[in-house]
Protein backbone atom coordinates (compact mmCIF):
# COMPACT_ATOMS: atom_id res chain seq x y z
CA UNK A 1 0.00 0.00 0.00
CA UNK A 2 1.16 3.47 -0.60
CA UNK A 3 2.14 5.06 2.60
CA UNK A 4 5.21 6.73 1.38
CA UNK A 5 3.64 8.08 -1.76
CA UNK A 6 0.75 10.12 -0.62
CA UNK A 7 2.13 13.03 -2.59
CA UNK A 8 0.42 12.57 -5.87
CA UNK A 9 3.19 12.41 -8.44
CA UNK A 10 1.83 15.15 -10.68
CA UNK A 11 3.34 17.54 -8.16
CA UNK A 12 6.74 16.47 -9.27
CA UNK A 13 6.11 17.97 -12.67
CA UNK A 14 6.66 21.35 -11.11
CA UNK A 15 3.20 22.05 -9.84
CA UNK A 16 4.61 23.71 -6.78
CA UNK A 17 4.77 27.16 -8.23
CA UNK A 18 1.97 29.63 -8.64
CA UNK A 19 -0.56 27.47 -6.90
CA UNK A 20 -1.90 30.52 -5.12
CA UNK A 21 -3.12 32.21 -8.27
CA UNK A 22 -6.64 33.26 -7.62
CA UNK A 23 -9.49 33.00 -10.03
CA UNK A 24 -12.70 34.87 -10.06
CA UNK A 25 -15.28 32.52 -8.58
CA UNK A 26 -15.10 31.32 -4.99
CA UNK A 27 -13.83 27.81 -4.49
CA UNK A 28 -17.13 26.23 -3.59
CA UNK A 29 -18.77 27.58 -6.75
CA UNK A 30 -16.03 26.05 -8.84
CA UNK A 31 -16.38 22.80 -6.90
CA UNK A 32 -20.09 22.66 -7.67
CA UNK A 33 -19.42 23.36 -11.34
CA UNK A 34 -16.89 20.52 -11.54
CA UNK A 35 -18.60 17.18 -12.24
CA UNK A 36 -15.67 15.09 -10.99
CA UNK A 37 -15.55 17.01 -7.73
CA UNK A 38 -19.30 16.70 -7.24
CA UNK A 39 -19.26 12.96 -7.98
CA UNK A 40 -16.51 12.37 -5.46
CA UNK A 41 -18.14 14.56 -2.81
CA UNK A 42 -21.50 12.79 -3.19
CA UNK A 43 -19.74 9.43 -3.02
CA UNK A 44 -17.89 10.45 0.13
CA UNK A 45 -21.07 11.77 1.76
CA UNK A 46 -22.83 8.47 1.04
CA UNK A 47 -19.90 6.50 2.44
CA UNK A 48 -19.65 8.69 5.52
CA UNK A 49 -23.41 8.51 6.16
CA UNK A 50 -23.42 4.73 5.79
CA UNK A 51 -20.59 4.52 8.29
CA UNK A 52 -22.20 6.88 10.77
CA UNK A 53 -25.63 5.30 10.40
CA UNK A 54 -24.31 1.72 10.35
CA UNK A 55 -25.92 0.82 13.71
CA UNK A 56 -29.31 1.90 12.27
CA UNK A 57 -28.93 0.49 8.77
CA UNK A 58 -27.41 -2.78 9.92
CA UNK A 59 -28.41 -3.34 13.53
CA UNK A 60 -26.88 -6.10 15.58
CA UNK A 61 -23.32 -7.17 16.24
CA UNK A 62 -21.57 -7.54 12.89
CA UNK A 63 -19.14 -10.04 14.40
CA UNK A 64 -21.87 -12.43 15.56
CA UNK A 65 -21.09 -15.89 14.31
CA UNK A 66 -23.87 -18.04 12.90
CA UNK A 67 -22.38 -21.29 11.55
CA UNK A 68 -25.68 -22.40 10.07
CA UNK A 69 -25.69 -19.49 7.63
CA UNK A 70 -22.24 -20.02 6.07
CA UNK A 71 -21.52 -19.03 2.47
CA UNK A 72 -24.95 -17.76 1.54
CA UNK A 73 -24.63 -15.94 -1.81
CA UNK A 74 -25.80 -12.31 -2.09
CA UNK A 75 -29.56 -12.02 -2.23
CA UNK A 76 -32.58 -10.34 -0.66
CA UNK A 77 -31.88 -11.85 2.75
CA UNK A 78 -28.19 -10.97 2.83
CA UNK A 79 -27.48 -8.20 0.32
CA UNK A 80 -23.77 -9.03 0.21
CA UNK A 81 -24.08 -12.68 1.23
CA UNK A 82 -22.46 -14.31 4.29
CA UNK A 83 -18.91 -15.45 5.05
CA UNK A 84 -17.30 -18.62 6.34
CA UNK A 85 -18.62 -18.01 9.84
CA UNK A 86 -22.08 -17.07 8.65
CA UNK A 87 -21.62 -13.36 9.33
CA UNK A 88 -23.62 -10.94 7.20
CA UNK A 89 -21.24 -9.22 4.77
CA UNK A 90 -23.44 -6.13 4.32
CA UNK A 91 -23.33 -5.68 8.04
CA UNK A 92 -19.58 -6.18 8.09
CA UNK A 93 -18.93 -3.75 5.23
CA UNK A 94 -20.98 -0.99 6.85
CA UNK A 95 -19.39 -1.42 10.26
CA UNK A 96 -15.94 -1.91 8.76
CA UNK A 97 -16.32 1.47 7.09
CA UNK A 98 -16.63 3.11 10.49
CA UNK A 99 -13.16 1.92 11.43
CA UNK A 100 -11.60 2.77 8.07
CA UNK A 101 -13.00 6.28 7.89
CA UNK A 102 -12.31 6.98 11.55
CA UNK A 103 -8.67 5.91 11.26
CA UNK A 104 -8.35 7.90 8.02
CA UNK A 105 -9.81 11.03 9.58
CA UNK A 106 -7.70 10.91 12.73
CA UNK A 107 -4.48 10.10 10.88
CA UNK A 108 -5.10 12.93 8.40
CA UNK A 109 -5.81 15.39 11.19
CA UNK A 110 -2.71 14.41 13.17
CA UNK A 111 -0.26 14.21 10.32
CA UNK A 112 -1.46 17.39 8.60
CA UNK A 113 -1.38 19.43 11.82
CA UNK A 114 2.11 18.24 12.64
CA UNK A 115 3.18 18.84 9.05
CA UNK A 116 1.85 22.43 9.05
CA UNK A 117 3.60 23.36 12.28
CA UNK A 118 6.88 21.64 11.41
CA UNK A 119 6.66 22.79 7.78
CA UNK A 120 6.31 26.39 8.85
CA UNK A 121 9.30 26.14 11.17
CA UNK A 122 11.27 24.24 8.57
CA UNK A 123 10.52 26.85 5.94
CA UNK A 124 11.88 29.61 8.14
CA UNK A 125 14.84 28.14 9.99
CA UNK A 126 17.61 26.63 7.92
CA UNK A 127 19.20 24.44 10.57
CA UNK A 128 15.92 22.88 11.66
CA UNK A 129 15.13 22.36 8.01
CA UNK A 130 18.37 20.44 7.39
CA UNK A 131 17.65 17.99 10.21
CA UNK A 132 13.92 17.60 9.53
CA UNK A 133 14.41 17.05 5.84
CA UNK A 134 16.98 14.31 6.39
CA UNK A 135 14.53 12.55 8.71
CA UNK A 136 11.81 12.98 6.10
CA UNK A 137 14.13 11.52 3.46
CA UNK A 138 14.63 8.51 5.67
CA UNK A 139 10.93 8.07 6.31
CA UNK A 140 9.95 8.64 2.69
CA UNK A 141 12.42 6.21 1.19
CA UNK A 142 11.52 3.41 3.54
CA UNK A 143 8.36 1.34 3.09
CA UNK A 144 5.95 2.54 5.74
CA UNK A 145 4.35 -0.86 6.01
CA UNK A 146 7.56 -2.38 7.31
CA UNK A 147 7.84 0.23 10.05
CA UNK A 148 4.18 -0.17 10.91
CA UNK A 149 4.59 -3.91 11.01
CA UNK A 150 7.49 -3.63 13.40
CA UNK A 151 5.56 -1.17 15.54
CA UNK A 152 2.54 -3.48 15.65
CA UNK A 153 4.73 -6.39 16.66
CA UNK A 154 6.24 -4.48 19.54
CA UNK A 155 3.30 -2.43 20.77
CA UNK A 156 0.70 -5.05 19.90
CA UNK A 157 -1.88 -4.62 17.13
CA UNK A 158 -4.52 -2.07 18.10
CA UNK A 159 -6.34 0.96 16.77
CA UNK A 160 -3.96 3.33 18.55
CA UNK A 161 -0.89 1.52 17.19
CA UNK A 162 -2.22 1.81 13.65
CA UNK A 163 -3.06 5.46 14.10
CA UNK A 164 0.35 6.22 15.61
CA UNK A 165 2.42 4.44 13.02
CA UNK A 166 0.36 5.68 10.05
CA UNK A 167 0.57 9.23 11.39
CA UNK A 168 4.35 9.04 11.69
CA UNK A 169 4.73 7.57 8.25
CA UNK A 170 2.34 10.04 6.58
CA UNK A 171 3.77 13.12 8.27
CA UNK A 172 6.82 12.81 6.02
CA UNK A 173 5.21 13.44 2.61
CA UNK A 174 2.88 16.09 4.05
CA UNK A 175 5.75 17.87 5.73
CA UNK A 176 7.63 17.89 2.47
CA UNK A 177 4.68 19.41 0.62
CA UNK A 178 3.99 22.07 3.25
CA UNK A 179 7.64 22.97 3.59
CA UNK A 180 8.05 23.17 -0.18
CA UNK A 181 5.08 25.48 -0.41
CA UNK A 182 6.30 27.68 2.44
CA UNK A 183 9.68 27.97 0.74
CA UNK A 184 8.06 28.99 -2.55
CA UNK A 185 5.71 31.48 -0.92
CA UNK A 186 8.46 32.92 1.25
CA UNK A 187 10.33 34.00 -1.87
CA UNK A 188 7.32 35.78 -3.35
CA UNK A 189 7.50 39.49 -3.84
CA UNK A 190 4.38 39.96 -1.73
CA UNK A 191 6.31 38.67 1.28
CA UNK A 192 9.17 41.07 0.65
CA UNK A 193 6.58 43.80 0.16
CA UNK A 194 4.95 42.93 3.49
CA UNK A 195 8.33 42.97 5.18
CA UNK A 196 9.14 46.34 3.69
CA UNK A 197 5.84 47.64 5.05
CA UNK A 198 6.94 46.42 8.49
CA UNK A 199 4.58 43.47 9.01
CA UNK A 200 5.78 41.43 12.02
CA UNK A 201 6.78 37.78 11.54
CA UNK A 202 3.78 36.16 13.20
CA UNK A 203 1.34 38.27 11.19
CA UNK A 204 3.40 37.56 8.10
CA UNK A 205 2.78 33.88 8.65
CA UNK A 206 -0.90 34.01 9.50
CA UNK A 207 -2.01 36.67 7.02
CA UNK A 208 0.30 36.05 4.08
CA UNK A 209 1.93 32.63 4.09
CA UNK A 210 -0.74 30.40 5.59
CA UNK A 211 -3.53 31.59 3.26
CA UNK A 212 -1.21 31.10 0.31
CA UNK A 213 -0.33 27.52 1.24
CA UNK A 214 -3.84 26.52 2.32
CA UNK A 215 -4.87 25.23 -1.11
CA UNK A 216 -2.03 22.75 -1.53
CA UNK A 217 -2.53 21.67 2.09
CA UNK A 218 -6.17 20.92 1.35
CA UNK A 219 -5.23 18.92 -1.73
CA UNK A 220 -2.56 17.05 0.19
CA UNK A 221 -5.01 16.29 3.00
CA UNK A 222 -7.31 14.42 0.65
CA UNK A 223 -4.42 12.33 -0.66
CA UNK A 224 -3.24 11.65 2.89
CA UNK A 225 -6.76 10.58 3.82
CA UNK A 226 -6.80 8.09 0.98
CA UNK A 227 -3.33 6.82 1.88
CA UNK A 228 -4.38 6.37 5.51
CA UNK A 229 -7.49 4.39 4.60
CA UNK A 230 -5.45 2.22 2.29
CA UNK A 231 -2.70 1.85 4.87
CA UNK A 232 -5.04 0.75 7.63
CA UNK A 233 -6.67 -1.81 5.35
CA UNK A 234 -3.31 -3.21 4.27
CA UNK A 235 -1.99 -3.53 7.82
CA UNK A 236 -5.18 -5.11 9.07
CA UNK A 237 -5.13 -7.45 6.10
CA UNK A 238 -1.77 -8.95 7.07
CA UNK A 239 -2.79 -9.06 10.71
CA UNK A 240 -0.72 -6.23 12.12
CA UNK A 241 -3.47 -3.62 11.98
CA UNK A 242 -6.32 -2.93 14.35
CA UNK A 243 -6.35 -6.49 15.71
CA UNK A 244 -8.82 -9.34 15.29
CA UNK A 245 -11.34 -8.01 17.83
CA UNK A 246 -12.21 -4.97 15.73
CA UNK A 247 -13.76 -4.92 12.31
CA UNK A 248 -12.33 -3.21 9.26
CA UNK A 249 -12.37 -3.79 5.51
CA UNK A 250 -8.82 -5.05 5.64
CA UNK A 251 -9.62 -7.44 8.47
CA UNK A 252 -12.63 -8.77 6.62
CA UNK A 253 -10.42 -9.72 3.68
CA UNK A 254 -7.84 -11.59 5.76
CA UNK A 255 -9.93 -14.70 6.24
CA UNK A 256 -11.86 -14.23 3.03
CA UNK A 257 -8.89 -15.01 0.85
CA UNK A 258 -8.94 -18.62 1.95
CA UNK A 259 -12.48 -19.06 0.60
CA UNK A 260 -12.10 -17.17 -2.63
CA UNK A 261 -13.02 -20.19 -4.75
CA UNK A 262 -16.19 -21.04 -2.81
CA UNK A 263 -17.45 -17.56 -2.01
CA UNK A 264 -15.89 -14.81 -4.14
CA UNK A 265 -18.43 -12.31 -2.80
CA UNK A 266 -16.78 -12.18 0.58
CA UNK A 267 -13.67 -10.90 -1.18
CA UNK A 268 -15.55 -8.65 -3.58
CA UNK A 269 -17.61 -6.41 -1.30
CA UNK A 270 -15.17 -5.21 1.36
CA UNK A 271 -12.58 -4.57 -1.37
CA UNK A 272 -15.09 -2.70 -3.49
CA UNK A 273 -16.04 -0.50 -0.57
CA UNK A 274 -12.38 0.17 0.10
CA UNK A 275 -11.66 0.99 -3.50
CA UNK A 276 -14.65 3.32 -3.82
CA UNK A 277 -13.51 5.25 -0.76
CA UNK A 278 -9.99 5.63 -2.06
CA UNK A 279 -11.24 6.49 -5.52
CA UNK A 280 -13.53 9.18 -4.16
CA UNK A 281 -10.72 10.71 -2.11
CA UNK A 282 -8.28 10.63 -5.01
CA UNK A 283 -10.82 12.18 -7.35
CA UNK A 284 -11.53 14.87 -4.78
CA UNK A 285 -7.83 15.58 -4.45
CA UNK A 286 -7.40 15.73 -8.22
CA UNK A 287 -10.31 18.05 -8.78
CA UNK A 288 -9.37 20.26 -5.84
CA UNK A 289 -5.97 20.67 -7.36
CA UNK A 290 -7.42 21.46 -10.74
CA UNK A 291 -9.65 24.08 -9.18
CA UNK A 292 -7.08 25.60 -6.86
CA UNK A 293 -4.17 25.41 -9.24
CA UNK A 294 -5.18 26.82 -12.60
CA UNK A 295 -1.68 26.36 -13.95
CA UNK A 296 -2.06 22.60 -13.79
CA UNK A 297 -5.73 22.62 -14.60
CA UNK A 298 -5.32 23.94 -18.11
CA UNK A 299 -3.84 20.64 -19.16
CA UNK A 300 -6.87 18.61 -18.36
Amino acid sequence: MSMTQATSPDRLAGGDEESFVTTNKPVWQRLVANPTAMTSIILLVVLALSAVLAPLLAPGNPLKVSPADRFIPPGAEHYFGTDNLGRDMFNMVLHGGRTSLFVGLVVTAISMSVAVVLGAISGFYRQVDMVLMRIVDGLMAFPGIVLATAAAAIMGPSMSTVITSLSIVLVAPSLRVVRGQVLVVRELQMIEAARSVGVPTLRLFTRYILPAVSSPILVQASFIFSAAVLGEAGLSFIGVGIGPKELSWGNALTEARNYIAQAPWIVLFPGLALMLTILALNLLGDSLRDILDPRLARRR
Partner: protein
Amino acid sequence: MTEQSILSVTGLSKSFRAVKAVRDVSFSIPRGKTFGLVGESGSGKSTTARLVLRLVEPTTGSISFRGRDLAELAPRALRAERRHMQMIFQDPFGSLNPRMSVRETLVEPQLVHDIGTPSDRLRTAERLLAEVSLPRAALDRFPHEFSGGQRQRIAIARALATNPELIVADEPVSALDVSVQAQVLNLMRDLQDRHGTTMLFISHDLRVVQFMCDEIGVMYLGEIVEQGPRDRIYGAPAHPYTQALLASAPGKGSGQRARLKGEIPSAHAVPSGCAFRTRCPHAFDRCVNEKPAMRDIGGGQKAACHLLDKAEAA
Protein backbone atom coordinates in the same frame (compact mmCIF):
# COMPACT_ATOMS: atom_id res chain seq x y z
CA MET B 1 26.50 65.05 1.55
CA THR B 2 24.42 68.19 1.74
CA GLU B 3 22.79 69.62 4.81
CA GLN B 4 19.30 68.45 3.93
CA SER B 5 20.23 64.94 2.83
CA ILE B 6 17.57 62.61 4.12
CA LEU B 7 19.38 59.45 3.11
CA SER B 8 23.10 59.03 3.04
CA VAL B 9 24.71 55.72 2.19
CA THR B 10 28.41 55.18 2.83
CA GLY B 11 30.61 52.26 1.82
CA LEU B 12 27.71 49.86 1.41
CA SER B 13 28.74 46.32 0.42
CA LYS B 14 27.02 42.98 0.18
CA SER B 15 28.51 39.55 -0.49
CA PHE B 16 26.48 36.42 -1.03
CA ARG B 17 29.12 33.81 -0.24
CA ALA B 18 31.75 34.28 -2.97
CA VAL B 19 29.66 36.72 -4.98
CA LYS B 20 30.29 40.36 -4.29
CA ALA B 21 26.95 41.74 -5.39
CA VAL B 22 27.44 45.30 -4.18
CA ARG B 23 30.85 46.87 -3.54
CA ASP B 24 31.50 50.07 -1.66
CA VAL B 25 28.49 52.06 -2.81
CA SER B 26 28.05 55.58 -1.49
CA PHE B 27 25.52 58.26 -2.34
CA SER B 28 23.15 60.65 -0.66
CA ILE B 29 19.76 62.04 -1.60
CA PRO B 30 18.61 65.56 -0.69
CA ARG B 31 15.11 65.82 0.73
CA GLY B 32 12.41 65.80 -1.93
CA LYS B 33 14.74 64.79 -4.75
CA THR B 34 14.92 61.64 -6.82
CA PHE B 35 18.13 59.67 -7.11
CA GLY B 36 18.28 57.17 -9.95
CA LEU B 37 20.37 54.04 -10.07
CA VAL B 38 20.79 52.75 -13.60
CA GLY B 39 22.63 49.69 -14.80
CA GLU B 40 22.38 46.38 -16.62
CA SER B 41 21.62 43.01 -15.07
CA GLY B 42 24.15 42.00 -12.44
CA SER B 43 25.03 45.60 -11.71
CA GLY B 44 23.70 45.26 -8.16
CA LYS B 45 21.15 48.05 -8.41
CA SER B 46 18.24 46.02 -7.05
CA THR B 47 20.37 44.62 -4.23
CA THR B 48 21.38 48.18 -3.38
CA ALA B 49 17.71 49.13 -3.16
CA ARG B 50 17.10 46.29 -0.70
CA LEU B 51 20.22 47.11 1.29
CA VAL B 52 19.08 50.67 1.75
CA LEU B 53 15.83 49.41 3.29
CA ARG B 54 17.70 46.61 5.09
CA LEU B 55 15.49 44.03 3.45
CA VAL B 56 18.87 42.46 2.75
CA GLU B 57 21.45 42.73 5.53
CA PRO B 58 24.50 44.71 4.41
CA THR B 59 27.91 43.09 4.86
CA THR B 60 29.51 46.44 5.59
CA GLY B 61 28.59 50.09 5.33
CA SER B 62 26.28 52.57 6.96
CA ILE B 63 22.85 53.83 5.96
CA SER B 64 22.11 57.14 7.57
CA PHE B 65 18.39 57.83 7.38
CA ARG B 66 16.65 60.60 9.34
CA GLY B 67 19.79 60.98 11.41
CA ARG B 68 20.12 57.35 12.47
CA ASP B 69 22.20 54.51 11.08
CA LEU B 70 19.74 51.91 9.81
CA ALA B 71 22.51 49.33 9.63
CA GLU B 72 22.85 49.48 13.41
CA LEU B 73 19.16 49.34 14.37
CA ALA B 74 17.76 46.41 16.35
CA PRO B 75 14.97 44.45 14.62
CA ARG B 76 12.17 46.09 16.59
CA ALA B 77 13.43 49.62 16.06
CA LEU B 78 14.02 48.84 12.40
CA ARG B 79 10.47 47.65 11.98
CA ALA B 80 9.15 50.82 13.55
CA GLU B 81 11.37 52.87 11.26
CA ARG B 82 9.85 51.18 8.19
CA ARG B 83 6.93 53.53 8.63
CA HIS B 84 9.10 56.26 7.15
CA MET B 85 10.49 54.28 4.22
CA GLN B 86 8.45 52.28 1.76
CA MET B 87 9.08 50.34 -1.40
CA ILE B 88 7.42 49.89 -4.79
CA PHE B 89 8.27 46.65 -6.58
CA GLN B 90 8.67 45.67 -10.20
CA ASP B 91 6.04 43.01 -10.48
CA PRO B 92 2.53 44.37 -10.05
CA PHE B 93 1.19 40.80 -10.03
CA GLY B 94 3.48 39.52 -7.31
CA SER B 95 3.79 42.31 -4.79
CA LEU B 96 0.17 42.36 -3.62
CA ASN B 97 -1.32 39.65 -1.42
CA PRO B 98 -3.99 38.00 -3.59
CA ARG B 99 -6.05 37.15 -0.50
CA MET B 100 -6.30 40.74 0.72
CA SER B 101 -8.80 43.23 -0.67
CA VAL B 102 -7.60 46.68 -1.70
CA ARG B 103 -9.09 48.02 1.53
CA GLU B 104 -7.09 45.56 3.63
CA THR B 105 -3.98 46.17 1.56
CA LEU B 106 -4.16 49.92 2.17
CA VAL B 107 -5.09 49.62 5.83
CA GLU B 108 -2.36 47.07 6.57
CA PRO B 109 0.62 49.48 6.80
CA GLN B 110 -1.34 51.83 9.08
CA LEU B 111 -2.49 48.93 11.22
CA VAL B 112 1.00 47.52 11.54
CA HIS B 113 2.38 50.90 12.61
CA ASP B 114 -0.62 51.67 14.77
CA ILE B 115 -1.54 54.86 12.93
CA GLY B 116 -4.97 56.40 13.64
CA THR B 117 -8.29 54.83 14.57
CA PRO B 118 -9.97 52.23 12.37
CA SER B 119 -12.14 54.90 10.79
CA ASP B 120 -9.11 57.15 10.24
CA ARG B 121 -7.39 54.30 8.48
CA LEU B 122 -10.34 53.72 6.23
CA ARG B 123 -10.55 57.42 5.38
CA THR B 124 -6.85 57.38 4.54
CA ALA B 125 -7.38 54.33 2.31
CA GLU B 126 -10.15 56.16 0.46
CA ARG B 127 -8.02 59.27 0.06
CA LEU B 128 -5.09 57.21 -1.23
CA LEU B 129 -7.28 55.51 -3.78
CA ALA B 130 -8.44 58.88 -5.03
CA GLU B 131 -4.85 60.08 -5.21
CA VAL B 132 -3.90 57.25 -7.55
CA SER B 133 -7.09 57.87 -9.59
CA LEU B 134 -8.87 54.64 -8.80
CA PRO B 135 -12.61 54.64 -8.08
CA ARG B 136 -13.83 54.18 -4.52
CA ALA B 137 -15.52 50.96 -5.63
CA ALA B 138 -12.07 49.44 -5.97
CA LEU B 139 -11.81 49.20 -2.15
CA ASP B 140 -13.60 45.88 -1.89
CA ARG B 141 -12.01 44.29 -4.89
CA PHE B 142 -9.09 41.89 -4.97
CA PRO B 143 -5.81 42.30 -6.84
CA HIS B 144 -6.64 39.80 -9.57
CA GLU B 145 -9.51 42.01 -10.69
CA PHE B 146 -7.13 44.76 -11.81
CA SER B 147 -4.84 45.25 -14.79
CA GLY B 148 -1.09 45.53 -14.33
CA GLY B 149 -1.12 49.33 -14.39
CA GLN B 150 -3.96 49.49 -11.88
CA ARG B 151 -2.19 47.11 -9.54
CA GLN B 152 0.90 49.22 -9.69
CA ARG B 153 -1.28 52.20 -8.66
CA ILE B 154 -2.51 50.18 -5.70
CA ALA B 155 1.08 49.35 -4.79
CA ILE B 156 1.93 53.05 -4.96
CA ALA B 157 -1.04 53.90 -2.76
CA ARG B 158 0.13 51.31 -0.24
CA ALA B 159 3.61 52.81 -0.24
CA LEU B 160 2.07 56.21 0.56
CA ALA B 161 -0.20 54.93 3.32
CA THR B 162 2.17 55.71 6.19
CA ASN B 163 3.15 59.04 4.65
CA PRO B 164 6.80 57.97 4.34
CA GLU B 165 9.72 60.30 3.81
CA LEU B 166 11.53 57.93 1.46
CA ILE B 167 10.20 55.69 -1.27
CA VAL B 168 12.40 53.15 -2.98
CA ALA B 169 11.04 52.16 -6.39
CA ASP B 170 12.61 49.08 -7.98
CA GLU B 171 11.90 48.98 -11.73
CA PRO B 172 8.33 50.13 -11.07
CA VAL B 173 7.31 50.37 -14.72
CA SER B 174 9.41 47.80 -16.55
CA ALA B 175 6.67 45.15 -16.41
CA LEU B 176 4.14 47.52 -17.98
CA ASP B 177 3.26 48.29 -21.59
CA VAL B 178 4.51 51.66 -22.80
CA SER B 179 1.14 53.40 -22.82
CA VAL B 180 0.44 52.32 -19.25
CA GLN B 181 4.02 53.03 -18.24
CA ALA B 182 3.49 56.70 -19.07
CA GLN B 183 0.40 56.86 -16.83
CA VAL B 184 2.29 55.41 -13.87
CA LEU B 185 5.36 57.60 -14.37
CA ASN B 186 3.21 60.73 -14.51
CA LEU B 187 1.42 59.62 -11.36
CA MET B 188 4.67 59.05 -9.50
CA ARG B 189 5.95 62.49 -10.40
CA ASP B 190 2.68 64.16 -9.40
CA LEU B 191 2.61 62.41 -6.05
CA GLN B 192 6.20 63.28 -5.37
CA ASP B 193 5.54 66.93 -6.13
CA ARG B 194 2.50 66.90 -3.86
CA HIS B 195 4.01 65.07 -0.89
CA GLY B 196 7.61 66.14 -1.20
CA THR B 197 8.71 62.51 -0.88
CA THR B 198 12.32 61.62 -1.46
CA MET B 199 12.80 58.80 -3.93
CA LEU B 200 15.41 56.21 -4.83
CA PHE B 201 14.50 55.08 -8.33
CA ILE B 202 15.98 51.90 -9.84
CA SER B 203 15.71 51.16 -13.54
CA HIS B 204 17.56 49.65 -16.46
CA ASP B 205 15.76 52.00 -18.83
CA LEU B 206 17.82 55.10 -19.53
CA ARG B 207 14.84 56.99 -20.88
CA VAL B 208 12.74 56.40 -17.80
CA VAL B 209 15.60 57.36 -15.48
CA GLN B 210 16.19 60.56 -17.41
CA PHE B 211 12.53 61.44 -17.10
CA MET B 212 12.24 60.70 -13.40
CA CYS B 213 15.52 61.57 -11.71
CA ASP B 214 17.38 64.67 -10.57
CA GLU B 215 20.59 62.88 -9.78
CA ILE B 216 21.85 59.64 -11.29
CA GLY B 217 24.30 56.91 -10.33
CA VAL B 218 25.47 54.51 -13.04
CA MET B 219 26.25 51.03 -11.72
CA TYR B 220 28.44 48.34 -13.24
CA LEU B 221 29.24 45.02 -11.56
CA GLY B 222 28.24 46.12 -8.08
CA GLU B 223 29.85 49.56 -8.13
CA ILE B 224 28.80 53.08 -8.93
CA VAL B 225 31.16 54.09 -11.73
CA GLU B 226 29.75 57.54 -12.33
CA GLN B 227 27.27 59.80 -10.64
CA GLY B 228 26.04 63.33 -10.98
CA PRO B 229 23.15 65.58 -11.96
CA ARG B 230 20.94 64.26 -14.73
CA ASP B 231 21.92 66.79 -17.35
CA ARG B 232 25.63 66.20 -16.76
CA ILE B 233 25.29 62.43 -16.98
CA TYR B 234 23.26 62.55 -20.18
CA GLY B 235 24.94 65.63 -21.65
CA ALA B 236 28.59 65.00 -20.78
CA PRO B 237 29.13 61.43 -19.61
CA ALA B 238 32.68 61.04 -18.32
CA HIS B 239 33.00 57.30 -17.77
CA PRO B 240 33.46 55.11 -20.87
CA TYR B 241 30.75 52.78 -19.59
CA THR B 242 28.21 55.57 -19.27
CA GLN B 243 29.16 56.74 -22.75
CA ALA B 244 28.70 53.25 -24.18
CA LEU B 245 25.43 52.72 -22.34
CA LEU B 246 24.00 55.92 -23.76
CA ALA B 247 25.29 55.13 -27.22
CA SER B 248 23.84 51.61 -27.16
CA ALA B 249 20.33 52.78 -26.40
CA PRO B 250 17.95 52.45 -29.32
CA GLY B 251 16.49 55.50 -30.97
CA LYS B 252 19.82 57.09 -31.83
CA GLY B 253 19.96 55.83 -35.37
CA SER B 254 21.98 52.78 -36.23
CA GLY B 255 24.97 54.67 -37.61
CA GLN B 256 25.67 56.37 -34.33
CA ARG B 257 25.82 53.26 -32.22
CA ALA B 258 29.09 52.70 -30.46
CA ARG B 259 29.49 49.11 -29.43
CA LEU B 260 30.87 47.49 -26.34
CA LYS B 261 32.68 44.25 -26.94
CA GLY B 262 32.01 41.10 -24.98
CA GLU B 263 29.64 40.30 -22.19
CA ILE B 264 29.18 41.47 -18.63
CA PRO B 265 31.58 39.38 -16.53
CA SER B 266 30.11 37.16 -13.84
CA ALA B 267 29.94 38.61 -10.33
CA HIS B 268 31.79 35.45 -9.25
CA ALA B 269 34.88 36.64 -11.07
CA VAL B 270 35.10 40.42 -11.03
CA PRO B 271 38.09 41.56 -13.09
CA SER B 272 41.08 42.98 -11.22
CA GLY B 273 41.70 46.72 -11.18
CA CYS B 274 38.88 48.48 -12.98
CA ALA B 275 35.92 46.09 -13.27
CA PHE B 276 34.98 47.56 -16.64
CA ARG B 277 38.40 47.12 -18.26
CA THR B 278 37.50 43.85 -20.06
CA ARG B 279 34.96 45.67 -22.19
CA CYS B 280 36.41 49.16 -22.21
CA PRO B 281 37.58 50.44 -25.59
CA HIS B 282 40.20 52.65 -23.90
CA ALA B 283 41.63 50.18 -21.37
CA PHE B 284 45.39 50.32 -20.79
CA ASP B 285 47.79 48.53 -18.45
CA ARG B 286 47.07 50.67 -15.41
CA CYS B 287 43.42 49.58 -15.52
CA VAL B 288 44.49 45.97 -14.90
CA ASN B 289 46.55 46.70 -11.82
CA GLU B 290 44.94 49.61 -10.13
CA LYS B 291 41.37 50.25 -9.22
CA PRO B 292 40.43 53.79 -10.24
CA ALA B 293 39.21 56.04 -7.44
CA MET B 294 36.06 58.12 -7.67
CA ARG B 295 37.12 61.65 -8.64
CA ASP B 296 35.24 64.87 -8.66
CA ILE B 297 35.11 66.41 -12.11
CA GLY B 298 33.06 69.45 -11.26
CA GLY B 299 29.41 70.37 -11.42
CA GLY B 300 28.60 67.68 -8.87
CA GLN B 301 29.72 64.99 -11.28
CA LYS B 302 32.03 62.16 -10.16
CA ALA B 303 33.48 59.23 -12.06
CA ALA B 304 35.93 56.40 -11.43
CA CYS B 305 38.24 56.12 -14.43
CA HIS B 306 42.01 56.39 -14.96
CA LEU B 307 41.41 58.28 -18.21
CA LEU B 308 40.31 61.26 -16.16
CA ASP B 309 43.79 61.38 -14.54
CA LYS B 310 45.39 61.25 -17.96
CA ALA B 311 43.21 64.08 -19.21
CA GLU B 312 44.15 66.17 -16.22
CA ALA B 313 47.82 65.45 -16.57
CA ALA B 314 47.84 66.30 -20.26
